[in-house]
């Protein structure tokens, strides 16, 4: 009961202060402007701080520096260009092999004279 009374007193106090704030804002536009300016200035701070609080728990498993991230993505793009290039070369090579096999000239002649 005593505890409830303390909480009730606290809320009453809180209500008083809110009423005071509203009265102050109504009577003094300068105070209101200052309050708004402070809120706007604090907004980016809060926005930056909120995800940072989450990041404390999460372990970074990927580079975080923008320069490093750029290098990683650029290297991946170059890697894919190289793979696609190699695939084209392999395709050309396979076609060439099949063409030679179709002509039947790929088999070695064991009796062919060798020039040394």
């Amino acid at each position, binding site marked *: 009961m005593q505890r409830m009374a303390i909480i009730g007193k606290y809320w009453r106090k809180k209500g008083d202060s809110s009423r005071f704030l509203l009265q102050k804002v109504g009577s003094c536009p300068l105070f209101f402007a200052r309050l708004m300016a402070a809120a706007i200035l604090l907004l980016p701070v809060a926005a930056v701080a909120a995800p940072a609080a989450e990041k404390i728990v*999460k*372990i970074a*498993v990927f580079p975080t520096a923008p320069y490093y991230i750029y290098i990683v*993505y650029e290297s991946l793009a170059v890697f*894919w260009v190289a*793979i696609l290039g190699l*695939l084209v070369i*392999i395709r050309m090579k*396979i076609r060439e*092999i099949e063409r030679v096999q179709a002509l039947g000239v790929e088999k070695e002649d064991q009796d062919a004279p060798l020039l040394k």
Partner: protein
Amino acid sequence: MNCPRLKEWLEERYDLEGVKRLAKGKLIPEHRYDLWYYTGGITLFLFIVQFLTGMLMALYYVPHIDFAHKSIIEIVTKLNMGWFFRSLHHWGAQLAIVFLFIHLFGTLLLKSYRKPREFVWITGFILLGISIFFGLSGYLLLWDERAFAAVRVATGGAGALPLVGGFIKAFLRGSMDVTGDTLLRFYAFHVAILPILTLGLIGVHILLVQLHGMSVPLSLKAEKQREVPFFPNVFYKDLAVWLTVTGLLVTLAVFLPPEIGMKADPLAPPPENVKPEWYFLFLMQTLKLFPGAILGMNGETIAILLVSGAILFFFLIPFFDSKSARGEKSPLFTWIGVIYLLYFLTMTAVGFFS
């Protein structure tokens, strides 16, 4: 690069021409299902990637409960490209198991296990089992809360088997619960025991494939087969497929690096909605289907017995399918294969999205 003197030096000592003749003489059938032949090669390639990236990580990993988690964080955050090699190792394992399953179901549906290739199937199936155990043992090495809870459930599930369950559970854990002993034991499995078994089995599997040659599906047996030499035709196609898989692997490693959870605390309650690796999801969902008790018996024990029976039947399928062995069509076993595949896919999807 042409080094005639080196070539001559080697030729004097070893029969390189013989190896060349063997590669050129090996013929591979060409037909509309020959795409399945490449899945085995892809799996082999991914195993090589796993061995290489695993060796790199073993240089820095510390298999102790106080340092395991910290050493992985250091590999990822402090070592140059450490995050990339860990990510490659993770995605290499996932892709290896995906391709192992594709290879397995391809072999099953094309009846490539039929006489005389029963032991090719047996060695391949054991390799799949070993790979799954590779995954489970590697998962614990991270020593984060999710891995800890998942291994506790998995080893506890093995303990539900009658007669041998208690022994398997104690053997895997090395103590009453998942502790530092389990971590050390799983590390030994992951880096020493399983790699040696895998190397031996891959050797036997490839040797048997060379001995029997490539299997041609029964439906195409009557048709006249066109064959191409392994070298250079299939070799270059294998190379192209491996290159594409490398690209896929690197892309996954860059865009989806695996997370690291909080360090495992044996006294803390398990985190919410803990799920095992995706290849255990069908098992988890199956266990959920069973009630706690059936006719006075433990429901989990019955479920694990039924799943073990189904896996054993799958393992011994070449010996049951006598029609295929005689060279006749066996639609019953095709349907059995389709049912196994659908059940596995459905349960995995349900487990994943639940």
